[in-house]
């Protein structure tokens, strides 16, 4: 019985682009040495050094020890040849083969990528935020503060006495949080930011003059509690890491799908980030009312001050826009936020 293996293909010389249409002849499937026949001539014996893994119907490359290469589109013959050795990638190829189970893979991929975006990246961001050394957070805090100072803030025009009145409550909130971060309370004229308060990564909390003028004492304290809760849960660090994680994931999977595709996916990323931001706001609201209650304050003050802020910021025309949660807002809509807050207040012990 003739066991000879004959494979049709092209023999490519080493170091030149010279090529011959040729046949690789092996005595039988288990040897690694053979000869190459072309144009009524035959080569010296050649020794197979490596065979490329199968990828779809792409030509296989058989590298010889002398640097020449035999390429063939006869994948079936090469598969028989390499079957005995069974590389890991023959299994990868069998996964890739077009058959119904690819639908299952597609479904699994969609579910996994979505799950990764929704739960994986946030968890990783949480771990990364937790692992971030306090010094790094402080540096980020300071640089964010510098940016804000130059873009929006100017020195506070409030009386020292007004500002000082909040310090005691602020310290009690920090104590109630049980967090060891280095909390600092600052007052600034918010300029275009209007009545607002911000929490920076390492515990700097900025309250604008406009907010202090807008709210009562207990309302401003409620906002401070909300901001302390942001710092407590590392929200600003987490947002930073989430944005980074999302960008990395998109680049990895989509690769070079073109600028527009990346823009679209990036837009999706912004939406996911906004959704995450809204969740954080809700978490800070719920934690905030708990902190206010702990120090013996009035938790409903957070609801009333939010209404005042919305009135001031949204005015009459855009009032409805403020009420509804939209895809692209960083904070939940007023209606939803109010309801969630009431639920959180009712749940307080």
């Amino acid at each position: 019985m003739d066991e000879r293996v004959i494979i049709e293909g092209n023999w490519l010389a080493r170091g030149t682009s010279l090529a011959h249409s040729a046949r690789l002849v092996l005595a039988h499937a288990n040897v690694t040495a053979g000869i190459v026949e072309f144009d009524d001539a035959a080569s010296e014996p050649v020794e197979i050094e490596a065979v490329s893994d199968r990828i779809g119907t792409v030509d296989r490359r058989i590298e010889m020890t002398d640097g020449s290469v035999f390429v063939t589109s006869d994948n079936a013959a090469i598969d028989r040849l390499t079957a005995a050795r069974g590389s890991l990638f023959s299994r990868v190829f069998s996964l890739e083969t077009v058959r119904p189970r690819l639908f299952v893979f597609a479904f699994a991929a969609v579910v996994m990528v979505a799950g990764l975006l929704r739960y994986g990246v946030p968890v990783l961001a949480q771990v990364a935020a937790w692992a971030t050394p306090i010094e790094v957070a402080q540096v980020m805090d300071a640089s964010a503060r510098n940016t804000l100072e130059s873009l929006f803030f100017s020195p506070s025009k409030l009386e020292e006495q007004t500002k000082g009145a909040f310090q005691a409550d602020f310290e009690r909130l920090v104590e109630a949080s049980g967090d060891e971060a280095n909390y600092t309370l600052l007052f600034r004229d918010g300029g275009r930011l209007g009545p607002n308060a911000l929490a920076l990564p390492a515990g700097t909390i900025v309250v604008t003059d406009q907010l202090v003028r807008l709210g009562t004492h207990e309302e401003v304290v409620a906002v401070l509690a909300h901001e302390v809760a942001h710092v407590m849960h590392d929200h600003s660090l987490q947002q930073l890491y989430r944005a980074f994680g999302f960008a990395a994931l998109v680049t990895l999977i989509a690769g070079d799908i073109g600028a527009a595709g990346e823009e679209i996916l990036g837009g999706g990323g912004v939406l996911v980030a906004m959704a995450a931001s809204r969740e954080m706001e809700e978490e800070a609201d719920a934690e905030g009312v708990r902190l206010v209650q702990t120090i013996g304050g009035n938790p409903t003050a957070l609801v009333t001050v939010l209404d005042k802020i919305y009135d001031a910021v949204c005015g009459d025309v855009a009032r409805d826009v403020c009420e509804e949660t939209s895809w692209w807002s960083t904070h939940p809509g007023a209606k939803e936020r109010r309801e969630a807050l009431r639920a959180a207040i009712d749940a307080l012990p």
Partner: protein
Amino acid sequence: MAEAQFGRSTQTDSGSTRHARLPFQFFGSGSEYFGIWIVNVLLTVLTIGIYSAWAKVRNKRYFNGQTELDGFRFDYHARPVQILKGRIIVIVVLIVMAILNQLHPILAVAVLVFYAVALPWVIIRGLRFNANMTSYRNLRFHFEDTKWRAFKANILWPFLATLSLGLLMPFASRANVRFLGNGHRFGQSRFSADPKLKPFYQALGVAMAILIAATALAALGAYTTFSRVTLIDPNNTDPAAFLAFLFQAVVFVPFYLAFFVASAAYAALARNAAFNVLALEGGHEFRSTVSVGSYCWIIVTNLILTIATIGLFIPWAKVRIARYLADNTTMLAKGDLDRFVEDQTDDRGVASGEFLDIEGIDFGF
């Protein structure tokens, strides 16, 4: 210049040395590539990104291996572990730089300087790696160029083009074609390209025309819809939100799409301009015949289908583009293609001898 032009045209016309038209062909199929792509995505996610290096190699081997010229396919030879090592190094450097950037304003300036100096180097290394790992007829490609030209093509001119709101874009394109076209070698044969500015400015003209036409349409759309809104629905309960939505729908989306189409049109014409001046030592030339209409159609439909299928269309999208570009690329070969040689005694040593293999900043697979 005139002599060179004259010399070239006589060569083309004289019977014995007439150029042979060798078309590029792409044989990949969307469904076959879908299998490879989806397994790449799955395994990359399951291995928290580590498989992406293997995915990249399988991907490149698929696209190179399905591209044919004169009866021979291209190939890709990088080992995944090389790519993985390079990626880890790049990521570590990026993280360190990001941290330094935050630490102090002076360090932030230092980081900027570092990037300006390192980027040209990384770009050259990346191009060199990819060229070395690509072969045709068992002969590798190579890339080498000066950091100054890399800086001009990738940082300086793009920066100036952005500053000039795109008016200097043709200079950036020309610098890029010079950088890429003159830097590559096939074996020891040099590629060369010395493009004129004119075709790039023509491309810019087409792109601008698309943009202006779209702006006019968007303005018209905005005018007609907004004037109608108040007429039809005077009792609209929520005019502000509705107007904001309408603005997005009739002004923002069409304008964004137009910008996208205009840049695709520029890319198509710039590609033609680049290939049409590309030459390979030995009298070989290239032609690209991408048409603005067909290319924009493919790009826009790809985009729509990719969004509609939450990304699952990506494999077909990539195959469509690869096939269209191959179909519109021709080599004008002077004589047989079996006379190229490698100047290294062992061509495989070129890549593995490098201490550091960086595939560039082209992450993803």
